[in-house]
């Protein structure tokens, strides 16, 4: 699998323009975060806040999947397991009097535990075999949760609200989690651990020949991804206050989680963020406008991306930027 390098990391540019671009790209995320943090001060209405909240949750999950699937090349269809377990763990904890923050920690912890249980047997499989095994695990967990009586089975589970509902509080929780996820992803990409993951994606045997322990590295990436995904499920459950297996454990959720980073740009830091935003915003709109057709439209979009730009939105941006600078250089040499 050939993947595009993240923006600004393709080649060491020596022109002032490229260093200015790199500076802009470094500062932009902080400006964006500041903007999103003050956004609720303006009266945007509950619908916009809700849309942004959902988008932050998807962005977090998209980033999480990309750590294992994008950097490490291990394609999992089973992330709904972590998302759903995180949601249920949070709901159960809150109903037992655990505070909001610790219930999220618990959600992440439960998901990490699940990631190890799933990872230890499945990471002995490679490529498509691993992907298929994750589908099996995901469906098995969904069926169990549909029939588990203490969580209400198929009819779902409700958080009993004790205080008043503050939408903005949930908005900030989701924003903070998404920001943490971006920071973790950026750190992983530059770390020794990230180097090992990419080496495994490129050639697992060659990586092992140089001293990288593939099994341990994959297991760790799976756990880190599960931690973020479980917490995201928890943030969602606290907001929705009602969850059911068909909603959080469905195969559609697992597929959606994997599609976001592919659309945005797999194996990059910003691709999954863009993918999460595209999915969060467009998907919610599509569901509202075309309730029967949204998956078809989304699927067609995906086919187009895979056929014409495997690097996703980030790959497209990277190419356009390079084409642009090339034209400028050419025109500059002929005044």
């Amino acid at each position, binding site marked *: 699998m*050939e993947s595009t390098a993240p923006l600004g990391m393709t*080649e060491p540019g020596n022109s002032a323009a490229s260093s200015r671009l790199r500076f802009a790209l470094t500062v932009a995320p902080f400006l964006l975060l500041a903007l999103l943090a003050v956004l609720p001060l303006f009266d945007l209405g509950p619908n916009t806040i809700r849309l942004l909240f959902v988008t932050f949750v998807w962005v977090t999950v998209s980033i999480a999947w990309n750590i294992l699937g994008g950097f490490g090349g291990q394609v999992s269809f089973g992330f709904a397991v972590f998302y759903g377990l995180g949601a249920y763990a949070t709901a159960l904890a809150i109903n037992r009097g655990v505070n909001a923050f610790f219930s999220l920690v618990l959600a992440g912890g439960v998901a990490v535990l699940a990631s190890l249980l799933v990872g230890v047997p499945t990471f002995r499989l490679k490529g498509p075999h691993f992907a298929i095994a994750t589908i099996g695990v995901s469906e098995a967990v969904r069926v169990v949760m549909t029939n588990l009586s203490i969580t209400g089975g198929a009819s779902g589970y409700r958080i009993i609200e004790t205080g008043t509902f503050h939408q903005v509080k949930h908005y900030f929780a989701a924003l903070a989690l998404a920001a943490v996820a971006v920071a973790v992803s950026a750190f992983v990409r530059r770390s020794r651990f990230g*180097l*090992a993951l*990419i080496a495994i994606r*490129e050639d697992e045997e060659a990586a*092992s020949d*140089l*001293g990288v322990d593939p099994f341990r590295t994959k297991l760790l990436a799976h756990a880190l991804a599960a931690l973020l995904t479980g917490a995201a499920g928890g943030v969602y459950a606290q907001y929705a206050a009602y969850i059911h297996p068909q909603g959080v454990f469905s195969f559609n959720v697992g597929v959606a989680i994997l599609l976001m980073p592919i659309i945005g740009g797999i194996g990059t830091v910003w691709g999954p963020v863009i993918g999460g935003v595209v999915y969060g915003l467009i998907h919610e709109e599509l569901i509202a406008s075309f309730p029967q057709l949204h998956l078809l439209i989304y699927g067609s979009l995906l086919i187009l991306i895979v056929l014409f730009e495997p690097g996703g939105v980030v790959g497209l941006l990277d190419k356009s930027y390079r084409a642009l600078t090339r034209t400028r250089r050419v025109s500059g040499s002929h005044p």
Partner: protein
Amino acid sequence: MAPILRVDRVTKYFAGLAALKEVSFELQPGGICGLIGPNGSGKTTLLSIIAGSLQPTSGAVVFQGRDLTGAKSFRVAQAGIVRTHQIPRPFRALSVLENVAVGISFGRGQRSASKTRDAGRVLELVGIAHLAHAPAARLSVGDQKRLELARALATQPSLLLCDEVCSGLTVSETTSVLRLLREIQKAGTTILYVEHNLKAIMSVSHHVIVINYGQKLAEGTPEAMQNDASVIEAYIGRTAEN
């Protein structure tokens, strides 16, 4: 002197077909040992077993007094044995420098300081320092072979296993790679060099082991092997007498 590597009656079956039958030899530290044999004689299989890429059916591999039989390849690399591949296997999405960084960060030398300096020195040594920031996917075959060596050296091995580093190279590229192997050996790394090209191996090896049909045929100095009747027969056949 104690041997750096002891291969003891290593046997490997692939679904009932014996690729190696009770191969034993010892490697003394410091030199370049050539491992030769006709196509399909089991050279690469033997190298893969020493590197931990394949597990032997029976027999033992002992490195610096430590039993590494059946150890996974990353453990073998961390212990100080590293291999290169006949067909280079670069991490294509990573730059040349990042490829080397994998070896530095996870090999035997992973705890050593000054990692960037180490990377620069290794690239300098193999002659691809000017390509440090190029994506590995864009290298020529010759440069990919150099990167394969650079990455292996970055792990700071005591024993380097080279699998046909000269195949597919031009005459002048072959000469410079052989010179490089000599430099690596002089810097203190023992080399086990698998090669099909007899001329190349005879010119750099201090010691040569010949295998055929998965069995050790003979071993000795390059000169002795070139004149050994059984070696000539294995390579050229009886018609050589004509």
